[in-house]
């Protein structure tokens, strides 16, 4: 049995390149997460305001995001906009756009769910104490909703990180692509490098996502 590519992993700058690729993926997902959380909070609050038109629009938006694979959305934005509008979007910009578009819908739905899960007695009691509407929302409802929201939004972060692996399909050189390049470069010297490198990528994703999802599970249990 020949070596399975562990030597290739530590040859030259290979490992540092791999980490660089990982950082590209994580950076895209972190930027998208921040945008999604901010916009999702806003849209989620608007959703509970009870405007019928807003509700209908949001349902369609959410349904589109739920049904269309993120890969299709990526293709639509990256290849479609160039053709239709003549925009020359960079791959990373379109990836961030797509993931924020997707994340915002998911986040808004979480916010909506958290807000309507607060029993109406909370609203009524706060009003009975003579609070203004803004006070009711900021001092009573929001703190309770945020507690329910945090574990769920942490879960969204891991989903986002996992989904960013798709960006290699529109030509962004992230961790999987770097692994592929390293394997190609060492095809002669170490034909079995694919095992070690793809195995490493698998573990890298696990090492990043696992603690985050454990944290979410812990918080969910503790704050439930």
């Amino acid at each position: 049995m020949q070596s399975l590519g562990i030597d290739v992993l530590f040859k030259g700058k290979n490992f540092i390149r791999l980490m660089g690729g990982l950082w590209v993926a994580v950076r895209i997902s972190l930027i998208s997460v921040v945008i999604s959380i901010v916009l999702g909070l806003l849209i989620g609050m608007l959703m509970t305001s009870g405007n019928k038109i807003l509700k209908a629009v949001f349902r369609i938006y959410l349904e589109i995001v739920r049904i269309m694979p993120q890969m299709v959305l990526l293709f639509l934005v990256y290849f479609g906009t160039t053709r239709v509008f003549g925009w020359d979007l960079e791959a990373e910009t379109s990836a961030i756009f797509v993931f924020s578009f997707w994340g915002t819908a998911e986040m808004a739905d979480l916010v909506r769910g958290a807000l309507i899960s607060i029993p109406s007695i909370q609203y009524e009691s706060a009003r009975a104490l003579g609070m203004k509407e803004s006070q009711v929302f900021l001092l009573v409802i929001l703190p309770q909703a945020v507690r329910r929201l945090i574990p769920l939004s942490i879960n969204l972060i891991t989903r986002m990180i996992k989904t960013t692996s798709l960006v290699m399909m529109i030509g962004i050189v992230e961790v999987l692509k770097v692994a592929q390049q390293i394997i190609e470069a060492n095809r002669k010297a170490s034909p079995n490098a694919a095992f070690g490198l793809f195995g490493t990528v698998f573990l890298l994703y696990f090492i990043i996502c696992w603690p985050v999802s454990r944290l979410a599970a812990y918080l969910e249990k503790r704050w439930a």
Partner: protein
Amino acid sequence: MNVEVMREYLPLYWRALLLTLKVGWIGVLLAFLFGLICAVTIHLGIPVLRRLFKIYIELFRNTPLLVQLFFMYFALPKIGIRISPEVCGSLGLGLLGGAYMAETFRSGLEGIPAIQEESAASLGMNRLQIFCYVILPQTISVSIPGILANVIFLLKETSVFSVISLMDLMFTAKDLIGMYAKTIECLTLLVIFYLIMLLPVSILGSWLERRVRYAEFGD
């Protein structure tokens, strides 16, 4: 937009849809099976298997399908395990889905009140009977919304199959764009075909969810 071109591409897309559906639904069935086996094993507390299945669930829930498929399709042959793209697609989807389904079933199992088990035991049922006739049917019925959400998620994930050169919808679209550069037509067809594939499941999902919620009122 050129409708003539789209009509010309239609057979290719149909073929791709059928393949995607075949590989996808086999994957979903496997996921259901794996999930059930894991959840039951963990619930019954079978010593070594329990530990193993928990590791499997954590591993597959915390890594992307794309990376899993790359590993199964490109890395495993290096240690002598070679599988065809279709088997790899179904199995990969099954393994990913199994981890998610297991969590769904597990929370379903936890939701069954202890009185159910105690009542069944007092009727003289043995452990196997209690599990098969009392606990399992209830678990599956309360898990239905979760299961359907997983099914939609899994069918969406089939879009990454193109990386293991399975000629699915994504692969067909990419291929045609590469050859004839009819980007708009190809992308429109892609969207339409994913709608054909996923809209019925999504509608069924929200209908069933409402039904399940009605069922709860009788409690």
